[in-house]
């Protein structure tokens, strides 16, 4: 039995449809990430599951039980909020225990759970502090502790790392991941950050305009995005897109765009009209004697960003601006002409509707 099921769930505010016919099963113990831009409906889905937002139509089940009309406290879920949602006038201990006290959990049991949670999260010395005496990372841990002590069936995370600086965000991301693996509690994690989605999720749901664009394991989505939106959203640096056509010349398919032409030696490419070709920056390579590629693209370098480990080279091929992620020792400067090989086996083609063609 799935831990959480959404069955044709929709949410409308007046005439605006925020979530449209959302259907999804989340397995027991799974960490599922909902990822999308603002307005994609990801937070609304989470809030409907929490009971903080009503459902316009459809059914939500937790462990098979219909919870669609239940108030939050009766759903056995716990949530971690973006700005933590800690009660400023209460100490850490009071913040952690309030929900349990309201549920009339016995005193000893409350103490046991708090001791367990603060032990895991390293909050022992902070129990008598108020939230404003804590750092961002500590507040985040308290918020997680508050969710943990409830021992819920499902953890909900609503962009929990957005308020933290980059270094802390990476650290907390790792902590959340290892915590989830340790507790094995079903977790639904909402984020706009595709790095968080890729690194944390057992599976990812990519959302746009209240609809599921793609559902799958992170690496599968990365390798085979279902449509142009997903291709552009998942992966850093972003995929390059070229508008053009596929021609079959002497039986061999070729991609032709303004000022640009290269072979696409693949048998699975049928002749179609207008297409968008997608190529990830790491699939553009400096040709070497051992790696000669028949398909190449040539352009003039307009910007070189040296990140240390790799170098991002932006170049113009005709009217098209492309970017390649090259090794850090690549000797190029602005104004150079470069010719890069294309890993044609990793190309993506999208038809006029944006759907994947391969």
């Amino acid at each position, binding site marked *: 039995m799935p831990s959480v099921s959404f069955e044709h769930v929709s949410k409308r505010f007046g005439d605006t449809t925020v979530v449209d016919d959302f259907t999804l099963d989340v397995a027991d113990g799974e960490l599922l990430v909902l990822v999308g831009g603002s307005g994609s409906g990801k937070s609304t889905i989470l809030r409907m599951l929490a*009971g*903080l937002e009503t459902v316009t139509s459809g059914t939500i089940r937790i462990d098979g039980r219909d919870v669609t009309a239940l108030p*939050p406290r009766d759903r056995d879920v716990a*949530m971690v*909020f973006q700005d933590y949602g800690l*009660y*400023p006038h209460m100490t850490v201990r009071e913040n952690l225990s309030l929900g349990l006290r309201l*549920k009339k959990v016995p005193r000893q049991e409350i103490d046991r759970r708090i001791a367990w949670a603060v032990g895991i999260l390293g909050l022992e010395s902070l129990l008598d502090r108020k939230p*404003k005496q804590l750092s961002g990372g500590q507040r985040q841990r308290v918020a997680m502790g508050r969710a943990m002590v409830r021992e819920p069936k499902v953890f909900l995370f609503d962009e929990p790392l957005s308020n933290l600086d980059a270094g802390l965000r990476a650290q907390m991301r790792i902590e959340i991941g290892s915590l989830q693996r340790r507790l094995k509690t079903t977790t639904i994690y909402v984020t706009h950050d595709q790095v968080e989605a890729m690194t944390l999720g057992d599976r990812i749901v990519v959302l746009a305009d209240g609809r599921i664009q793609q559902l799958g394991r992170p690496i599968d989505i990365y390798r085979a995005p279902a449509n142009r939106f997903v291709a552009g959203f998942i992966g850093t640096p972003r995929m390059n897109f070229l508008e053009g056509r596929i021609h079959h010349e002497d039986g061999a398919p070729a991609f032709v765009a303004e000022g640009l032409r290269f072979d696409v030696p693949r048998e699975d490419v049928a002749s179609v009209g207008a297409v968008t070709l997608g190529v990830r920056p790491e699939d553009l390579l400096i040709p070497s004697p051992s790696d000669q590629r028949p398909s190449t693209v040539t352009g003039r370098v307009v910007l070189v960003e040296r990140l240390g480990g790799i170098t991002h080279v932006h170049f113009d091929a005709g009217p098209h601006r492309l970017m390649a992620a090259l090794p850090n020792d690549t000797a190029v400067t602005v104004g150079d002409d470069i010719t890069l090989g294309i890993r044609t086996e990793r190309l993506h083609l999208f038809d006029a509707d944006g759907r994947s063609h391969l």
Partner: protein
Amino acid sequence: MSTLRRVGLYAALTLAALTFIYPFLWMISSTLKPPFDVGTLELIPDRITLDNYRTMWVRAPFGRALLNSALVATTITAAVLVLGSMTAYAMARLRFRGQPALNAITVVVLLIPGQLTLIPLYTLIVKLGWIDTYAALIVPYLFNATAILMMRQFFLQIPHSLIDAARMDGMGEMRILFSIFWPLAKPVLAIVAIFTFMGSWNEVLWPLLVVREQQLMTLPQLLTVFALGGGAGSLGVSLASAMVLVVPVVIAYVFLQRYFIESMAGSGTKG
């Protein structure tokens, strides 16, 4: 700032402060002077006497009036805080049909001067048979648009995630209001309490209209009737009765001035 400028500034401020405080000090001192000395401008009485207070206490039921005032002002203040914060919470944080209309009506109520509603309200009280009752003094003041709007404005600044967290913790709306919002809104609640209490405590016109029985009169009303009606007999006695009116307000201010100054400074430094 140079020493000279600072001296100048302090001199000006001291002068201004004296201008405000002198009449008050003079009033205190005059209540302690024998009848002949009351007219003088001196602040230190040659001879101190409590005769004025004794006379006042004997001639009119000031003790009872003090109780009446305390009862009326406390009830109104409590109601304005409890009912007002409930209304403000709903206006700020709940979604319901007619909410924009409610917001608009509250602002409109604020714009209507009290004098305008005096006569219709009086007629209503007469029809209800509430003349010479506490209800006439209390009920018309139970809701206060200014207080509601002040509290609503403050509640809007409290992050929504706190309400979400409280709901996840299993709290109902009332509990969220009184155990989450109230502790956070202490400064604004204190301000509303001070203004409501002082407004109610000092109110003269309305009690004069709806209460004629001396046993039900509030302190300022009795004072007005007593002093203007010639019951006091001397300036010293009049001033002594005024002191009885002022002292509770001053005491309240001393206790709550921290919040008072905070709100006047308008700083957004809530934790």
